[in-house]
């Protein structure tokens, strides 16, 4: 059991750190910025990643990547997160679209789409969720109708990050209404020229997510990924990459949430309070457990294992510690944190509000618990 970097990893971490320090030198603290400014820096950051050849860090060399492993990617993401780097604007392209196309695409699809991601010329978004589907993803209704040479698709999608910046969409649609709900789904690489994108304003004021309305979107046959009717299987691959990439640096946010809580308590002179120490002790245990669990997950993947359903425990733990730390940070603030023009109070409240989504997005808390019950404990399905 070794939680330390190997000498090679250490060297790589130093290399990454040095590059990041330089590349981030002119990037302001994202926490203090308005949403539109954060988006600007996300774009700049994506461009710098592409220029620095970091975009395909863990992609195979034959597809233009550096061919490094999950740990290398974890090291990069961790060092970036610790430094408060912006979220790269084409995260979906680098982390989901690329790896899924590499896993399921044919040579033509790889040639057509992978270079654009590495060069930063094509931005992607993910069109899976629908207003009616929620946790029951496979009940999606967006419908693809067969026409000569391809498919015409109509319907709507929701919770799409970054839709207004993307030109391509990883799109799930129903190609066979008569088939079983999973078998009737296909996976399209869809151009977004006939998508209408409408931003959703979140309760913290951000417009991180969008609704998308598809009006006779045409996708040629050659842009069905993994074969007609195989969409669910391909989607599971994407979802696995999504879980994997999230888990790489989720822990940094938990760590930062607890640290910021302590900072505000120290600032307000409340850090000596025994009830506070008790609460922060419990939060710190959980935050560290998320960090360690993430390391173990990366180590499992690296040694050939597949991260199991226990990752749902990490997700659940992570959501809880971030929510609870952020709530407490608001409540111990001057004026109970409700005077948003107070020193740092606005960002604190924004973080608390953003965290409410953590038990909903990326598989709700209820879904995580169901996974643990069914797949770790072997209990019967409860849905």
């Amino acid at each position, binding site marked *: 059991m070794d939680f330390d970097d190997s000498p090679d990893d250490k060297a790589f971490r130093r290399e990454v750190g040095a590059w990041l320090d330089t590349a981030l030198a002119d990037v302001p603290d994202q926490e203090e910025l308005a949403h539109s400014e954060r988006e600007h820096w996300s774009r700049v950051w994506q461009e710098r990643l592409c220029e620095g050849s970091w975009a395909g860090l863990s992609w195979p060399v034959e597809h233009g990547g550096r061919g490094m492993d999950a740990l290398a990617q974890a090291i990069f993401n961790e060092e970036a997160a610790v430094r408060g780097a912006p979220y790269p604007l084409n995260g979906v392209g680098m982390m989901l679209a690329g790896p899924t196309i590499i896993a399921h695409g044919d040579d033509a699809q790889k040639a057509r789409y992978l270079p654009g991601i590495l060069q930063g010329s094509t931005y992607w978004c993910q069109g899976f*969720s629908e207003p*009616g589907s*929620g*946790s*029951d993803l496979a*009940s999606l209704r967006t419908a693809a109708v067969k026409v000569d040479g391809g498919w015409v698709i109509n319907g709507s999608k*929701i*919770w799409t990050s970054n839709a207004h910046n993307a030109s391509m969409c990883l799109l799930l649609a129903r190609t066979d209404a008569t088939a079983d709900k999973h078998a009737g789904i296909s996976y399209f690489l869809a151009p977004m020229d006939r998508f209408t994108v409408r931003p*959703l*304003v*979140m*309760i913290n*004021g951000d417009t991180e*997510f969008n609704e998308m309305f598809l009006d006779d979107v045409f996708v040629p046959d050659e842009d069905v990924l993994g074969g007609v009717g195989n969409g669910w299987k391909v989607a599971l691959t994407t979802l696995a990459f999504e879980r994997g990439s999230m888990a790489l640096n989720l822990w940094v946010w938990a760590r930062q949430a607890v640290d910021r809580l302590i900072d505000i308590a120290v600032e307000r002179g409340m850090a000596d309070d025994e*009830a506070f120490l008790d609460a922060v002790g419990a939060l710190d245990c959980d935050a560290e457990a998320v960090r360690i669990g993430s390391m173990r997950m990366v180590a499992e993947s690296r040694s050939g294992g597949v991260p199991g359903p226990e990752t749902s425990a990490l997700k659940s733990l992570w959501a809880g510690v971030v929510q609870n730390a952020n709530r407490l940070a*608001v*409540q*111990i603030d*001057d*004026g*109970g*944190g*409700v*005077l*948003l*023009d*107070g020193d740092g109070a*606005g960002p604190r*409240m924004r973080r608390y*509000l953003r965290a*409410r*989504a953590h*038990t*909903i*997005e990326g598989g*709700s*808390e*209820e879904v995580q*618990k*169901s996974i643990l019950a069914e797949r770790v404990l072997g209990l019967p399905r*409860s*849905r």
Partner: protein
Amino acid sequence: MHATFTEEQREVEQAVRDIAGGENGAARAALDAPWSPPAMDAELFGGFGVLGVPESIGGVGSDLVDLLVAVEVLGETLAPSRFPWHAAAVQLLSGGPVVDDAILGGEVVLAPAVDARPGWTGTGIARSLVPYAAHADAFAVVDGDRVWSASAVAVRERESFDPSVPLADVEFAEAGADPRPLARGLERATLVVAAQLCGVAQGAIDLAAGQARTRQQFGKAIGSFQGVAFQLAEAVTARKAAWDLTIYAAWAVENDRDDATSHVHAAKAAAGKAAVFAAERCIQVHGGMGITMAADPHLYLRRAFVLDAMLGRGSVHRREVGRLRVAARA
């Protein structure tokens, strides 16, 4: 023992509901445009100004529970009204002597100025978390065991997490004109806030239950999953505890019982906890839509946080309960 609501109290509840119901949109309106007095204010001041006002300051024999029944509904409907704050301010003055008819009739609108402004080093007295200050004619200013009504020397509007309850820092001259004893005024005003919180909890629970009854997933209404249903059952339990504590505390204060102070703390602590919990569960049960401005759950969350912060944070009240109980047995 007649620990049941009277027919008159049920009528008050219905009357307030008739006035405030449907005004829910007004809490949302304040997200986009500055708050302005809603139509209901005149009706509430006109019809309910004497609720809970002791006879010793000019009331007509209505007791505090009557007032709490009314303001609970205002919490439930998220009414963006000055009425509960004016009423809380009148309660602050309840230690006597008689209060002007213009105040009791709502022609002079008061706001309570209770919470200290942290870091204040100026002359005079500064209070924070003062609601609707720019639309108040005067303030009930609490300092130690005294309270008086006064005009502001300066009002600094703050950015309220709930824009339908605008908040301000307000400064007052050092010595108030005509100070009166606080007596149980602060406790009575605190219960006005607790009752609103109980209402907010109830409103959030009702909204969430509606969603749980209708939203379908996996071929069923989501409320048929215990994972969803039990969260709301817990919210019901917390809200009932808070409301029972609040009306008991009001009775205890009215009757000058030994345990009244501890029960006021308990009511404020429990009501704040119930409201924040219910609002968070309401968001969760709404799933993705729950974290959007377009849906209503966040309106309850905003009101819950603001009320929990006012007239003493819930967590401070909770610890005070522990302190008093330990002191009583040590």
